[in-house]
């Protein structure tokens, strides 16, 4: 019996397989690298909220300061989602019949909270403190982006550890005077670069953010 002989064209398969085998791992690494990074996965996350609250309207057009609603941002770790009462301060007079505000009115009537969906969700083992950043001149927009232009809040930055460290290692890239923290459209004073003002602020206020593990993990 004749032994089986691979046809000549099958030689090409060997090259092909070699090419695939050498590229596939690279492709896979690239895929995971890109695909699983927080920059791909998390940036742009914009869940639907129970009330179609527009920051673009309230913070942008109406110019309400961030701290009117997120009032604990200077005092505590969390910036605090406003209580129903805060909404009702205005909305018991304005748009009192708007169907969009129904959940707010229902909450005010029943005393049960509105269930908002968390957008900027850090892992439970990371301990972030808003007050320490806001009180040292890190602007809201530096991490949250131009909230005043968002109808639906979306995550603007990856909030990954590497991203945190980028700033902790060189905070001058983002520092601004403390009274400019909630200014969404902050620009460094004319004629100065961000780096120059940042460095000056860093020196003046002795801002040396630690990069120890226990800074955020405990």
């Amino acid at each position, binding site marked *: 019996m004749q032994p089986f002989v691979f046809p000549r064209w099958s030689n090409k398969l060997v090259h092909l397989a070699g090419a695939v085998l050498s590229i596939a791992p690279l492709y896979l690494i690239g895929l995971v690298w890109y695909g699983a990074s927080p920059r791909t996965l998390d940036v742009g996350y914009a869940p639907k909220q129970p009330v179609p609250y527009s920051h673009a309207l309230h913070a942008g057009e109406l110019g309400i300061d961030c701290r009117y609603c997120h009032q604990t941002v*200077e005092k505590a770790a*969390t910036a*605090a989602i406003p209580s129903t009462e805060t909404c009702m301060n205005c909305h018991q007079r304005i748009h009192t019949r708007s169907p969009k505000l129904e959940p707010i009115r229902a909450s005010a009537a029943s*005393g049960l909270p509105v269930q908002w969906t968390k957008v900027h969700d850090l892992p439970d083992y990371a301990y972030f*403190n808003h007050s*320490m950043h806001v009180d040292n001149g890190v602007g809201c927009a530096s991490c949250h982006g131009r909230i005043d232009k968002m109808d639906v809040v979306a995550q603007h930055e990856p909030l990954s550890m590497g991203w945190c460290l980028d700033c902790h290692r060189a905070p001058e890239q983002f520092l601004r005077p403390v009274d400019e923290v909630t200014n969404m459209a902050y620009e460094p004073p004319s004629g100065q670069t961000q780096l120059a003002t940042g460095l000056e602020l860093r020196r003046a206020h002795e801002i040396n953010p630690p990069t120890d593990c226990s800074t955020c*993990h405990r």
Partner: protein
Amino acid sequence: MPSMNEEKRYWRSLAEHATSPQQDEARPEFEAPLAPPTQQERRHFLKLSAASVALAGAAGCRWQEDHLLPHTQQPEGVVPGIPRYFMTAMELGGAGVGLKVKSYDGRPIKIDGNPAHPDSLGGSDARHQAAVLGLYDPDRSRGFSTLAEGGRKPASENEFRGFAREHFSALQAQKGRGLAVLAGESSSPSLADMKARWQARFPEARWFEYEPVSSPNERLGSRLAFGKVVRTRLILEKAKVIVSLDADILGSRPDSLALARAWSKGRQPEAGKMSRSYVFESSLSETGAVADHRFSLRAEHIKPLAAYLDAELSRRLAAPAALGAAQSAPSAKFLEDPELRKLLTAMIADLAIQPGASVVVVGATQPPEVHALVHRINAVLRNVGTTVQYLEGLDSSEPSAPEALRTLNEEIASGRVQTLLVLDSNPVYTAPGDIDFSAALAKVPRTICASLYVDETASLCSWHVPLAHFLEAWGDVRASDGTISIQQPLIAPLYGGKSAIEILAMLSGDELPWGLQIVQRALAPVVGNAAADPRLWRKSLHDGIVPGTAAAPDHPVLRPIASFEYAGGALSGLEAEPGQLELVLAPDPKIYDGRFANNGWLMELPDWATKLTWDNALLVSPKTAQVLGVTDSTLVTLSMETESVSVPVLVAPGQATGSVKLYLGYGRTAGGSVAGRALAGGSVHGEWDDQASVGVNAYRLRSKRLWDFARGANVKPTTEKYRMATTQDKHTIDRIGKFGTDDRLPMLVREASLTEYEEHPDFVKHAVHHPPLLSLWKDPVKYEGHRWGMSIDLNKCTGCSNCVVACQAENNVPTVGKDRVYMGREMHWLRIDRYFKGDPEQPEVVNQPIPCQQCEHAPCEQVCPVGATSHSHEGLNDMTYNRCIGTRYCSNNCPYKVRKFNFFNFHEDLKEEKNKVQQMVYNPEVTVRFRGVMEKCTYCVQRIQEGKFRASRENRPLRDGEVTTACQDSCPTQAIVFGDLNDPNSQVSQRKANQRDYSLLEELNVRPRTTYLALVRNPNPELG
């Protein structure tokens, strides 16, 4: 070469003591070698790994969606995430301790002592620390219930109210005839007020006070001595000589926290303040552990000893005639012991030359005449007015006696009780063996039990009312000096529980139904009308004490005391007589009378002396064990009169020869999923996991004859062994065998007598000699900014172990259960190493708390392959859990053995609906660790961070003492000090400048940040 002679040797366990230094044998690290996996297990493991890889891809790309639930109305002054602190108080056995509770977003999560409270001074004990776990215990009763056919049936509050209204108005019509109340002892003014109102409404009702572990002897003794009941207050700061006759003044009195602080003030050799204590006791106590001279003596020998002291001191100091005749020195056999004789002679001389500067204390369980005699001895020593004070009018003239339950039982038997209200008491469990209280309950037509759990008693009562936890209810307590504290609730009752005063108000139809109103009404004489002018009320709430409520000092006149007669074995010799052993029953140092038995933190806390967890065992002295032919963990039948129990033996150094001890509080049959329940037959509650009772019920041995201690116990060994989980020889610092141990122990615990210390104040520097220390590494960091460090003063540590539970509460440390403690897998971040020295019958004891030493050249950091443990710029060894892959190299390389590994996910069962409530106990500032992760003491890094944040927000530098660790806060003697070493004025820097300062294993050059102050004892030079 063993550098110390035989007498000076330290040892941790009897096994170690018995091993001669020549036997150089290394102990195995683990109790039982781990068996290699079988073929089956291996295949199963591979299958699982394959499946987990496959499933990893299927897991979602984003983690679970989280929700934010804001307030609807923001309460004023409340900032979410910023904890608030409130003062309250906890009562136990008729005395209250003021507490400061941390409330995080409305949940009480951490308890410390109230610095302004006279019985706390800021310290707190393990039971206070563990109270939050008790509050969120998922086994707690969740509502009203009635006894119906086929078990208990849940009922609504309204059903109960309906029953109560009808039943109690009928009772009122007949003036309360046939009504009886059984309650515990309480110092609460509101409860006393409600009791008076109750008795006015139901004049013929009976009220019984029964406290299973309190002893009336102190009060009876006071009446014998003075003709009235006064309370004794000790001023230990002023005492140069302290003599304790079976009294654990530092550990088991209601005012022990304050006494421990006062005692610690007299243990500062550098300040020239060193008291000297002589302790005679039947079993090793905290007071005995820190004593300068300790003698193990049976409890029955205390009476003749007191008489001997009285006779000798009266002769020496020429006691005033007004005090009457002294006791005649008894001719007791044990007093002829040459060692004891020598000790007593030296002690009496010591006492006689320092009149007015000593204090003699007797244990609460000793007979009344001994108490009376000790009052006399203190008078002879002219201590009254200086170190001993008397306070008037605090204790009721009729002390609650063990007989209360017996009387009630007889009343029931004679059919005179138709309705019984049991208020926060568990008589079915705590009744002595000769009273069958469950049978008695069956004879009462209407029984109502108010309790935290559906326990042994509640499950047999026709109605059960859920009791509010003390953190859920308004109330008040009195301190040992009479100071009133308001107990304010930290959280609304989780399960609709009612407090005792509210239940009394409800049943008696009081016009004020709410706890707050009742307390305000009762306290009106001291805080005024709180509704009209709340200022004093608010101040009292804020400070945690009502000002000016301490009792006034009394100057009672001592009466002559009749001469003693001795019964039983009081005059016997020191040696053991099998069959005539003395049995001592005492409340457990952790779970008390059994009421905290369902608290995992307390159950797993190693007993400070025996290091036993999850059990009670019969404590037997080494010599007695030899006579009886028993060894550790032999199961024996312990019998006293007609009752007997089967209990394992634990050979305990320091136990008196011929005296055996068993702790009460174990062997619960309806305790909960931690304390266990009866497995066969007596099943009472269906929803608990099947778990056998933990330990044995020692109450069954109690009888008319034996309450706290009595002679006549018999121990019959069996051939069976019982597995006990002790943490005795685990996590030992050395691993190089017996030679190493002997060489090293005197370096680990450095100790000198006061004379040696005065001659060589730098003696600690000579304990270890090593070549110059060179490092392989450059200093990793310069430590600019803060440089955290800790100092632990061994001279102040009593070994009480409160810090261990405090650490557990602060840092979300899991409990692992008996089996895993047995394998050496307990998770405590802080352990207390206890060393003995000398003769096992009369050992000296040293306690040494070991948290992570936070080395500057940390061996753990160098071996972590993933950088999960790393060095911070402030010198902490940070532990990053989410990086840890569980190689355990770090633990292997840690010379102090302080790292603990999560072998399992210990929070798994919290996912169950029923257990979810327990999640509320967690400190949200600390990660809850998962399986496969290494963990260790962090110096409470979350508190450091919070302190720095607070200082930064307020734009000021961090102050010394602003950041404290949890262990430091709980320590009653302030043995632990933490702070910034870069600040030369900080308390910790000053401690470290002390000449007694030394570090453990300094010869390894790991440069630990936690250092110790060496122990200095003050033995009588005459006995040198």
